[in-house]
């Protein structure tokens, strides 16, 4: 226990040095991690006892774990004591009741990111739960959703207003000790989104959350929980972006999805965290655990992701197919430029009878980036008639980047059908010249080829986000050829 008291001493010293500042724009806990920090986070959020206990249990478990090293990524050792685990915008004290009350500076930032809340609120019918660092700033369309009985709020609100749901489902898909980063998240997560769609309800609009890391030297640990009751349907989109910093920042999120009988959850991500500069300086370390459980018969969970940012991406959105005839899908575009490193893929675990899964993965590497697909298709003994189709394609731009594929297949049932197809191709100078000789600029030519390569995945995105994703790829690959 001596280390523990040392930590406390350290914390006290640091507190003395930095203190809790109220005259700056952010309220930030001093760097460091120990049980007191976790208690402080829980207390700040005024959480019920069960939450604190859950966090502490996770933290104690985390202490016994080791950071995983199996991924095809390299980075200097993370000093978990140098990270601050909580940051809230100062306007938190008098939380805004409507958009008018939101700090105009903040809205301006969202505008720059191309997320005009007003526009979205008015035109698109998208309810945006904007998370600025750790605290949810504004939630729109809450009323319309409430009419349908849909709960869509920040995780903190859910803890206060629907503790019974949170307690019932939290950590049931991704247990607090699931893996190193998930355990860390469980211990210190500060906010996130919560969605509950009651029985038989089709959510009347796309739900969307934009996360943004703003404060320096803070980790962001959001946690999202989506529950789709029997026969319900919901489509959720998260977009992520972060400003440019020289330091690396840690982002360790957890997403849990639960689909009951005949329910369907569609979860789409457009991830554009700061990738670092051309020399690989700065950028987000994105270590994310996303998993969905198809608990009910005929349920369906579909992940679509466009991963364009982050210095390191470590992410495997997965489906556990428990219910008979349940369906899991994973559609992914992962693009790396400069010195970005990506190790991403999915796990499809077939437990129920006649479960089906589809994996379409498109990896694009440019510059000196390394892009690995890592996937597991597992069929357990009782999963009669399980079927999987996996297609895993890599596209290379230039000759200094890398594409890697690590498909794992474990089949314990003789009636299972598992298919795996993989291709690797390169954007050739001859393709670029051909298109240029038809009057198309080099940039447009690259975009045309890349978009063609990704179209099966883009087709899964909601329309307006598909357009955004295309634009994002164009920006990400700027200067990648020629």
């Amino acid at each position: 226990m001596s280390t523990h008291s040392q930590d406390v001493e350290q914390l006290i010293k640091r507190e003395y040095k930095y203190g809790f500042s109220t005259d700056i724009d952010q309220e930030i806990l001093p760097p460091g991690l120990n049980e007191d920090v976790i208690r402080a986070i829980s207390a700040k959020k005024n959480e019920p006892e069960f939450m604190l206990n859950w966090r502490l249990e996770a933290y104690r478990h985390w202490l016994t774990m080791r950071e995983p090293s199996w991924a095809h990524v390299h980075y200097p050792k993370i000093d978990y004591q140098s990270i601050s685990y909580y940051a809230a915008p100062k306007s938190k004290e008098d939380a805004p009741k409507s958009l008018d009350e939101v700090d105009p500076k903040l809205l301006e930032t969202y505008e720059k990111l191309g997320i005009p809340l007003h526009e979205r609120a008015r035109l698109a019918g998208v309810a945006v739960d904007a998370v600025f660092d750790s605290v949810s700033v504004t939630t729109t369309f809450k009323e319309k959703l409430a009419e349908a009985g849909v709960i869509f709020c920040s995780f903190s609100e859910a803890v206060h207003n629907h503790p019974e749901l949170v307690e019932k489902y939290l950590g049931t898909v991704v247990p607090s000790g699931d893996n190193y980063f998930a355990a860390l998240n469980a211990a210190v997560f500060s906010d996130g989104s919560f969605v509950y769609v009651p029985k038989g309800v089709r959510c009347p609009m796309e739900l969307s959350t934009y996360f943004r890391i703003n404060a320096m030297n803070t980790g962001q640990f959001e946690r999202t929980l989506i529950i789709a009751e029997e026969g319900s349907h919901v489509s959720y989109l998260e977009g992520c972006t972060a400003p440019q910093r020289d330091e690396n920042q840690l982002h360790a999120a957890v997403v849990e999805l639960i689909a009951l009988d005949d329910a369907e959850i569609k979860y789409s991500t457009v991830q554009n965290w700061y990738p670092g500069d051309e020399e690989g300086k700065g950028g987000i370390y994105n270590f994310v655990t996303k998993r969905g459980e198809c608990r009910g018969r005929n349920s369906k969970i579909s992940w679509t992701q466009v991963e364009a940012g982050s210095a390191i991406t470590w992410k495997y959105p997965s489906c556990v197919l428990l219910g008979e005839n349940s369906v899991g899908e994973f559609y992914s575009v992962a693009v790396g430029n400069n010195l970005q490193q990506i190790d991403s893929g999915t796990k499809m675990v077939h437990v129920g009878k006649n479960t089906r899964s589809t994996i379409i993965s498109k990896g694009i590497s440019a510059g000196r980036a390394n892009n690995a697909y890592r996937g597991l298709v597992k069929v357990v003994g009782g999963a009669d008639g399980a079927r999987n189709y996996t297609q895993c394609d890599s596209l290379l731009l230039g000759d200094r980047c890398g594409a890697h594929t690590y498909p794992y297949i474990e089949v314990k049932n003789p009636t299972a059908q598992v298919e795996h197809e993989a291709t690797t191709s390169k954007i050739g100078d001859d393709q670029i010249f051909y298109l240029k000789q038809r009057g198309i600029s080099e940039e447009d030519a690259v975009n045309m080829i890349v978009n063609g390569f990704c179209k099966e995945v883009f087709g899964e995105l909601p329309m307006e986000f598909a357009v955004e994703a295309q634009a994002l790829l164009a920006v990400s690959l700027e200067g990648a050829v020629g």
Partner: protein
Amino acid sequence: MTQENTAMLKINNLQARVENGTPILKGIDLEVKPGEVHAIMGPNGSGKSTLCQVLGGRDGYEVTDGTVEYLGKDLFELEPEERAREGLLLGFQYPVEIPGVKNIYLLKEAYNAQRKHRGEPEADTFQFLKLVREKLQMMQMDESFLHRAVNVGFSGGEKKRNEILQMLVLEPKLALLDETDSGLDIDALKIVSEGVNKLRSPDRAIVLVTHYQRLLSHIEPDFVHVLSGGRIIKSGDKTLAQELERSGYQGIIEEAA
């Protein structure tokens, strides 16, 4: 602009090589006027393809001497895409496969890039489809072609037909066709030739680069040039092609030497 009598393309003492390689073009002179059809013939290794690549703007070639003027501009000042937008289109000997990109999409982007360049409004999908359907018929191509990925899984003949389809849609001022007849069976050769003949117009020039005379029995050229060792060693009218057919390249090369 009275281009009736002025050359559209003026090649003067053009010398070029593959970057840091041995010289391939050793002084080419050629003038092409609107409405003319020129055939450049020559044996393997004479520099036919290099000439096409250099005019088209492909990287990896070095112009060591000489000038090329296109519509009064220095051609080498223009990027390949600018050359295309200005109406200089190269029909490829080996059309390139582009997986995932639909034919119709490439055609429309290319068409609109040109219109934009000329300050004209871009065509919408309906206008464009109407235009493309007409051209498809000319090439006896099925509409399903439009929805296939560019050249992917196309037979040799289909690829060449696709090149001419692009020409018909993009309506170049100067069409440079690099061995468009290679790899074609008789039927495909006929269709492709008919397509090229439909391209013929008083304000458009066509330069056919070919190894064989057989293309010229379908497309009648105004001028025939024999390229050998990186130079045009003989020029004449269509009868020169017939002479070639009889005596082969060797005879002409010896005669010129």
